[in-house]
Structure formats: structure tokens, C-alpha cells
């Protein structure tokens, strides 16, 4: 059956623009000027997507399951120190908290750069071809989907992801995070019923809140326009929670959507490299040079270093 269908549609599969006629292509734009690094998006993601809280020890070992994380980067010190930071941070997060492992003891007053990092839903996703069981694949609406039930945990995708935004269930966190018991009553009621709780040995990652997308599509279909979800009719959890509205999410096939306008105004386009851009627009895609075609545009932070 599968083979027959494949042979019949072979020419379609071979086309570069196989998904071009699909009505949806989800994308995001994140303004780093607006990001204040509060971490509300990460918290919202935990609540929405049933992410386990792994605890201090596991976090320090690198087992954290934050699909959305705030990365912090500091500028190289430029001579004079404003804040002194102890040489050895006494947290156990050494090496995982993003604190550079150098002898730098002070940082300029301007503080950290924040960059919210989540799955970039790459169109040339490096994680997809390497999965031996095809547990991760590209959906027609441009998502990089992860099928938990199919995953056997070879973790090749995690290695091949340049953003390292794939998270592996090294333990049965929901079972063991609570001292060997499953969630004590009534905490299980806080779980989101729209998606599953993952077990050990499975890779997971940001889905652009696929459960909300499905609900919105269903609603659109009920309202009589099956291939058109109005921009802003639903939000991802991180977008909804961001206090400064740094995150914009939407359908990039819809020219009226905010995200499409932002991408266009920053001269960022799928299938196009950075080289022919004018220099005074802020939009860029992380690791664009790897040609993985990420669906998230970041807008660079601009600072007045004279102040």
C-alpha cells in the first residue's frame, strides 16, 4: 500500500516545492531588543507542554527539559569592571548556566545578552534525515514534527541539531522527579490534556504548540474557512506570556500576518542567504551559514554603548 502510493506520487515527492501549495507555513520572529530575559516564556512552555521539572541535580547534569530556554551571553570585558562576579560560581551549574569558563571575573555594566532559544523548525532540518525510524519528519505546514511513539532513542537527531534544542528523557522524570512516585494528587490535574506525557528514552522538542494550531485549524474549519486561520486567532504559549511581546508567531504564507510583514521588512526570506542584505536591518537567522533554513527570525539587539 505505502509503496504503491509512493511510486504513484514519485514525481511529486521529488519536487523541491513539494509543500508549496499548502496553505500554512508557521514561522516566528523574536525581537531581542524587547527581550528582558525574564524567563516567562520558558515557564509558560513548561505549563503548556507538560515538561517535567527535573530538579537541581539533574539540571546541573544537563538533563533539563526546557523546550524554550533563555541563553545568556556577556560581552567581552572592555577594560573596566562594573560588577564583580566571584571567580567560581558556587552553583553546581558550572558549564551549563552559560557562564563562560574563563578567568574573567568581571563583566561590563551592560549585563547579559538574552536570546530565547527554541526549536527553529528548520526547513532543511539536519535532525530529520538521520533518524533511523523516521520518528521526526517535516509536516506540510512546515513543522519539524517529532513522533514520540515512534522514537527509539538513538539520539542521532540531538547530536545533529546545531541549536541543541532537542531534549532527551534520560529518566522517567514524571515518575522519579517526585521521589520515586508519580505525581501526588492533585498535581496530575495541572497536566495539559491536549498532549501526552513523555516517558523515558524518548526525544522531545518544541512543537510551536501544535495542539493549539490544531484547535485553531479546527475552529477555522467550523467557521467555514478551512484553509485560513486568522492571524492572532491563537498564540503559542511563549508568545502569549511574553510581557514585552517580543515574540511574534504566525502563518508565513499569509501576507497580512504580522510575522510575514516583519520578515519582509527585515529582508529575511526562506531560501535566501544573508549576503545580499542591506546592513541596517536587524533581522537574522541563527546559524544561517549552515543552510538549515530555520523558520525563526531574530532581530538583533541594538545598544548605545556610549551610555
Amino acid at each position, binding site marked *: 500500500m505505502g509503496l504503491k502510493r509512493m511510486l504513484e506520487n514519485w514525481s511529486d515527492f521529488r519536487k523541491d516545492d513539494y509543500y508549496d501549495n499548502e496553505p500554512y507555513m508557521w514561522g516566528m520572529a523574536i525581537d531581542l531588543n524587547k527581550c528582558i530575559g525574564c524567563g516567562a516564556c520558558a515557564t509558560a512552555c513548561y505549563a503548556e507542554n507538560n515538561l517535567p521539572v527535573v530538579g537541581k541535580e539533574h539540571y546541573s547534569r544537563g538533563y533539563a527539559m526546557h523546550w524554550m530556554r533563555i541563553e545568556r551571553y556577556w560581552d567581552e570585558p572592555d577594560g573596566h569592571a562594573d560588577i564583580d562576579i566571584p571567580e567560581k560560581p558556587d552553583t553546581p551549574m558550572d558549564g551549563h548556566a552559560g557562564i563562560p569558563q574563563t578567568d574573567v571575573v568581571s563583566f561590563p555594566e551592560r549585563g547579559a545578552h538574552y536570546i530565547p*532559544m527554541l526549536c527553529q523548525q528548520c526547513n532543511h532540518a539536519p535532525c530529520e534525515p538521520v533518524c533511523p525510524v523516521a520518528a521526526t519528519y517535516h509536516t506540510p505546514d512546515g513543522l519539524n514534527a517529532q513522533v514520540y511513539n515512534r522514537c527509539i532513542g538513538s539520539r542521532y537527531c*540531538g547530536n545533529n541539531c546545531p541549536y541543541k534544542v532537542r531534549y532527551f528523557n*534520560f529518566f522517567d522524570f514524571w515518575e522519579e522527579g517526585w521521589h520515586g512516585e508519580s505525581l501526588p494528587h492533585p498535581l496530575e490535574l495541572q497536566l495539559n490534556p491536549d498532549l501526552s506525557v513523555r516517558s523515558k528514552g524518548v526525544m522531545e522538542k518544541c512543537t510551536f504548540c501544535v495542539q493549539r494550531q490544531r484547535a485553531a485549524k479546527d475552529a477555522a474549519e467550523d467557521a467555514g474557512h478551512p484553509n485560513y486561520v486568522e492571524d492572532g486567532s491563537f498564540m503559542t504559549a511563549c508568545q502569549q506570556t511574553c510581557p514585552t511581546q517580543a515574540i511574534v508567531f504566525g502563518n508565513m504564507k499569509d501576507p497580512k500576518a504580522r510575522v510575514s510583514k516583519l520578515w519582509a521588512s527585515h529582508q529575511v526570506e526562506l531560501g535566501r542567504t544573508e549576503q545580499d542584505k542591506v546592513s541596517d536591518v536587524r533581522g537574522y537567522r541563527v546559524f544561517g551559514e549552515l543552510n538549515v533554513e530555520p523558520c525563526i527570525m531574530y532581530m538583533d539587539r541594538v545598544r548605545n554603548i556610549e551610555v
Partner: protein
Amino acid sequence: MDSMKDIEWARINKDVLGSLETPRITFWIVLAVCSVLVLCGVAAEVYQYNNGLGVALMDRPHFWQLYISNFIFWIGMSHSGTLLSAVLLLTKADWRKPIYRFAEAMTLFSILTAAFFPVIHLGRVWNLYWVLPYPDERTIWPNFRSPLLWDASAIFTYATSSALFLYIGMIPDLAICRDNARGWRKALYGVMSLGWMGRAREWIAFRKTYVLMGCFLVPLAVSVHSIVASDFAMSIVPDWHITSFPPYFVAGALYSGCAAIITLFVMLRYIFKFEAYMTIDILEKVAKLTFAIAMVWNYLNLSEYAAIWYSNDMYEHEVLIQKFIGPYWPVVWGMILCSTVAPFAMAFKKFRQNLWAMFFLSLVIQLGMWLERFQIVSPSLASNHEPWTWAVVWPGLVQLTITAASFGWFTMLFLIFCKVFPSVSMYEVKELVFHHRRVSARSELEDLGKEKDATIRAQEGMA
């Protein structure tokens, strides 16, 4: 003088069959130690299975670690067996004859050891069979683009073919065993020798099959390790994504495998008293081969560094620099000391002919090659594209225990094989002796003829 050339045929049978009966006491000691190691490994795996892969102390950038490097190590070791038996069979190098049987056994058992690691490594082992392309009612196929799937196919093919090669090559010897054995051994050899009577027709068919299998195995072996290299070369991780990885892996495989052959050579020679067969002469030839392969491997290693250095890729530069001065420097420098510097000792004839020096050196080379596999996997992940996730992780107790157990498992299988089956090929050694006799007899006749001519000439001169 090579003592092997003067062995009587009957003594060959007696010696080799004797090895099945009375090994030195060391055999039982080594076997016991290996069994304990295997039990420890089973315990570690059960612990990991129950608790999740977190107990192996891998983490987010380090999704792969010792399990994968061990996998490459063991697959690599299997390659020399094929080289020694198939390549040298096709090139008609006679000195392979007394040692190829155990080299083939080494091939088979190191594949069986290697095959464990991708399994142990999986997050959900119980769904392993999903990797295989079997027809099921959901019409879901594995992903044929994934190098891991190629791995699974390659391992299955290679394991099957080398098991067949080993078995086919053993049939005439199994018949000899059958004719001399009693009890359960008689039944076993009787079934396995497939009614071999030593007729001319059987020998012709046997020879054809064996050479054909050899021709098939050589390209297969090369492709298997190239596929293992693709696990890395096909990814975009800096310092894995290297075009020269397949030949580099094949050379490294032959290198560590040749070292393993030397180790097992000395071990077998001692434990099963094969002094008359595994001569110093053969050891020297294996050492020369190892030295040549060591140089090839070193060349490929250097060219890989050069390719990265001149590539102008900042991620790969970073990884390369971190390899040498970063947290994993003991591993990388250890590899260079053991696998690049140490083999130059083999340039000296005295060293090559010293049994225990070669034994020690072969262990050092294997350590170096094991470190080489580790430094392929870990440093690249430690300094990947995304600086926020940079972290240094060393393998934990569970991984180390399972690693040790793999060595125990391999040695255990190997020793049991040598106790049950003839580890020196009797019929091929006989051929070697026969060949030598014929050559020496002819030269004796020629010498006699010359003497006669000289006498006649002398007499004529006198006349």
C-alpha cells in the same frame, strides 16, 4: 630456522586436536575473569534499563559517548580478520595459513560484541526491531536516509558473511575432528562437517566457494566501516562532517585489528602451546603489516587535521584546537603517543622478533586506537556549534563497566571457540608443509644434479 617446515602431518593433527583437550591453566583463569566481567556488565545494563539512560551520565550535548566509540572500536577490530584471511588468501601469502582461523574467529566475535553497543545505547531498546525494514500492517518503513539504518544492514550482512566464511573454511578440519573425537564432540563435529569425505570433487567445490567468499568479503569489509564512518561524516557536527572519514576509519580499523591479532597470537601461542605453528617468523610478518598500516593511518590522520586547519571553518577550528589544548587533551595526546609514536618501535627487527615486547606494544596500540575512537566522539560534541551548551562530560561508572564487560565478552567467546574448534587450520598448514617439501626436494635434486655435473666435468678435465 623455521621449525614449522619440518612438522610431520600426523603431528599437526595431534597438536591441533590436543589444543582442544589440554590448554594451560591460564585458560581457565582468563575464562573465569572474563565471565565475571560479563556478569558485571549484565548487572550494569539491567540497572540502566530499569532507570533510564541518565545513569550512564551522558547529557545534552553528549548524546553519544562510550557506547558509540566502543561500537566503532569493535567493528574496527573485526576488519583485520577479513584482511588477513581474505586479502592474503587472494594475494596468495602463505604465511597467513597457521593464523587465519583465529583471525576469522576474532572477526566474528568482535562483530557480535560491536552489535551489542547500538542496542545498549538506545533509549527504548524494546523497540529495536523498528530499525529493520520488515513489512508490517501499518506500512511504516524505517528511514532509508539514516546512516544508522545503513549500519544495521551493514552489521547484519557482515556478521552473516564472516560467520559463513569462518564456517566454510573450517569444514575439512571439522571432518578431521569428527574422525578423532568421542562423545558430544563427535556428534557436534559430525553434524557440522556436513559429511565431508575429502573427495577430489569436494575439494574443488570447497576451493571455489572459499575464494568466491573471499572476493565477496573484501569489498564488503571496506563498505562496512565506511558506513560506520558515515554515522559521523553524514552529520553536520563540526569535526564529524569530514569527507576523508571513510578511508580514515577503514585504515584505523585495520590498524587496531592487526594489533589485536598480535595480542591474540601471543595469547594463543602460550595458552594452547602452538609454539611450533605460530612462529616468530609469522609474528614478524604481521608486525611489518601492522607497521605499514600504522603509517597509512597516521597519514590520513594528519591529512584530516590539515583539511580542517585550512578549511576556514571556525567551528571545526575550535574543535580541533580544543582537542589538543581543551579538557580532553589527555585523550588526544594519549592517542598520539600510543598510536603514532609507539609503533615506530616496530621499525627495528629485534623488537619485531621479541614475543613479549610485541605483545605489550600491541596492547599499547589498541589502547591508543580506543582513545582515538573516544576523541572522535566526545570533543566534537563538547564544543559544538552552540556555545551555550558547551560542557565537558566524562563517561560514568555504568558506561565503563559495560565497556570492560565487552572486552570480557569478546575474550570469553574467543577462548570458548578455540577450545571447541581447531584454532589452527590443519589442512592449510599441511599444504604449507607439503609445498615446502616439494620445493626443497626439487632443490635437493637440482643440487645433486649439479654435483654430478661438476664431478663429470672434473673427471673430463682430468682426462
